[in-house]
């Protein structure tokens, strides 16, 4: 069996860290696919082709995970034995208030004088907050003590909330774009 079990940082030969240089990651990704992709095994045996599909899929999954801050944060925490799903803490009240406010402004987009402008504003607000949270995550994940990691987990969960908001924003954008 090909080595499909080693973790993604190892596969991409990157240090186990939240700080991933996007260009290095993309370059390694291309390098790995040049080796493993099924297009390189068209004349090969079935065994080679099967392994190539599995390995190429693994590389794609790794790239997707390491590229995206939310997926990367979640993955890194899991490597450190912390799962996002069994969080026992409740996210702080300020954060939840902020979510409610953002949802309200999303709700107002459709009826505002310039819906596209309003949508853009909400979208920018969300992007700015995501950057802050990602910075916090990077900072916390550099520490290795449990308290920092638990805080990092909460930040990652917050990022998840913003991701969902963004998805809803996309749906709204699509609806507004209907000719």
């Amino acid at each position, binding site marked *: 069996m090909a080595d499909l079990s080693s973790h993604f940082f190892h596969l991409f030969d990157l240090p186990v860290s939240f700080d991933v240089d996007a260009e290095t990651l993309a370059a390694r990704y291309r390098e790995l696919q*040049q080796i493993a992709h*099924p297009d390189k095994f068209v004349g090969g*045996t*079935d*065994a080679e082709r099967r*392994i190539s599909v599995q390995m190429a899929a693994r590389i794609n999954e790794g790239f997707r995970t390491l590229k995206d801050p939310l997926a990367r944060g979640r993955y890194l925490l899991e490597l450190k034995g912390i799962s996002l799903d069994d969080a026992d803490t409740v996210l702080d009240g300020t954060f939840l208030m902020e979510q409610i406010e953002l949802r309200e402004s999303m709700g107002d987009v459709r009826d505002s004088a310039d819906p596209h402008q309003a949508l853009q504003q909400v979208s920018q607000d969300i992007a700015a907050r995501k950057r802050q949270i990602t910075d916090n995550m990077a900072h916390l994940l550099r520490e290795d003590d449990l308290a920092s990691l638990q805080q990092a987990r909460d930040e990652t969960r917050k990022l998840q909330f913003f991701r969902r908001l963004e998805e809803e924003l996309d749906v709204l954008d699509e609806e507004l774009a209907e000719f």
Partner: protein
Amino acid sequence: MALLHISEPGQTAAPHQRKLAVGIDLGTTNSLVATVRSGRAETLPDTNGEHLLASVVRYRAGEAPLVGAEAKAATTTDPRNTVSSVKRFMGRGLADICKGCSCTDYDFADSDSSVPRIRTAGGDVSPVEISAEILKTLKYRAEASLGGEFTGAVITVPAYFDDAQRQATKDAAQLAGIPVLRLLNEPTAAAVAYGLDHGSEGVHVVYDLGGGTFDISILRLNRGVFEVMATAGNTALGGDDFDRIISQWLREQAGIDPQTVDVGQRRAMVQEACRAKEQLSEAETVLISLPLADGGCWTGSLDRAQLSVLMDPLIRQTLSACRRALRDADIDISEVEDVVMVGGSTRSLRVRELVGEFFQCQPKVNIDPDKVVAVGAAIQADILVGNKPDDDMLLLDVIPLSLGLETMGGLVEKIIPRNTTIPAARAQDFTTFKDGQTALAVHVVQGERELVDDCRSLARFVLRDIPPMVAGAARIRVTFQVDADGLLSVSAREETSGVESTVQVKPSYGLSDDEIVDMLQDSMAHAEGDVSVRMLREQQVEAKRILESLDAALREDGAILSENERAALDAAVVALREAEVGDDARHIKTAIQALNAASTEFAARRMDASIKGAMAGRKVEEFS
């Protein structure tokens, strides 16, 4: 079919010898075949010098079907036996076809199979068989032109084709006796043809509006790697729809009652609409004449302004898809380097105008939009068969539609979201719902909607023999794997007991393996030789291919095997060599399978070694 030469054992072509490979664009309106010769990719003409083969097949009683211009000539005179735009029926059930309102043009036979069949003078034929006729014609053309049999073909499909449509295309190739190297998405093929990799790093858009399908792909290019970031489209929107809408308008203008129009007349009106549309790319206004039932003739005119009024709603639908693809790719219009126009329908000035406005740039139309896809496919085929070992071109494509499973209440749980890079593999754990439950029904669907009924049903299978446990105790892992052709296979495994079940997804509207063998048998019965001869030949070719490939691998990396491992592998090689010279196809097949099993560990170790080697090699460079 003239049987082609089988070289004697021991006289196989030297590995470095150039292999023949072709790219095939199986289009809604026209199809083409192309190849790379003397370093140039070019489409191959027929004996009359025509490059485009009309994708029209006419069936006749007791005679071989006609394909291309000859068939097209009978579109209005023999409409029931003359099938055009069959691509729109691929991988579709009758209900879907009727939604596209073209089912009234043909007599569909009642049959037990889920695959619709058209009743013709030449018998009942499925869309796969009709497509296979087109493919065969291109195959003979290529063989005549290249002077021999080709190793394989890259066949293009719309990027937005779902699993069922892709599988149907592959089935048609199998029926036509064409080894498929890869199914390639049409916009990606176009990007390759444009040679977008050379000095054009960055984000490119391919806008592909053909006769019956629309695709938009957004690609990022970097050092020979074509990475598709997102794709969107509509497999039931194209030039045919423009023609239909224009012809309806003409009919209204002429005051012709739709009830009185027969199939032949309707097709004549559509042809007139198509001609008017095409001429309006040059002229400001065109004259129209439609025959009337009383033997008279209606004359009128159509100008560009009116044409725009008719076409704009359809073009806007394509722009909506462009918007979605940009969003999925997380790309702003300002980041797009250029837009490449592909497909016959992009000859329309109005299409170019609106697309240019949307992307705020002048769309590229340098390469003949009819030929560009076949040319790109030929370039990839040439690389895939190994004719350019130093080329580092690599195409990383995506699945166009999300793949998921039915869960409680008819809801869809998405396993692999749309625009995931392929190959892809993803697993999800499920559990039992009732105490003592021993089976789990798995229903695989494709689509973006939340309800199962709104998605396309791909396959159903049942995982049985789960040991009885309390509800929620079983851990059933369902794994989806999508290969480089965009085809899905699904496996389910109960983790505590190891009970396993795997399906190569055979779409609900696809042909069963038995049906394909029957069709093969039928087509052979028409004076094309013996099916068993063909099967034997196919197995021999496959055996030869595997032996050659393994031989090369062993010469290179044989050292990574222990003595015992090497001995076991050598034994399997000898067994296959012995089987290969015999005349028992099944025996060869068994020996191939045994060799594949025996070589799995070797292949896996080579893969790991080359990945580690690449990383180590890079490190050396970095430090030097």
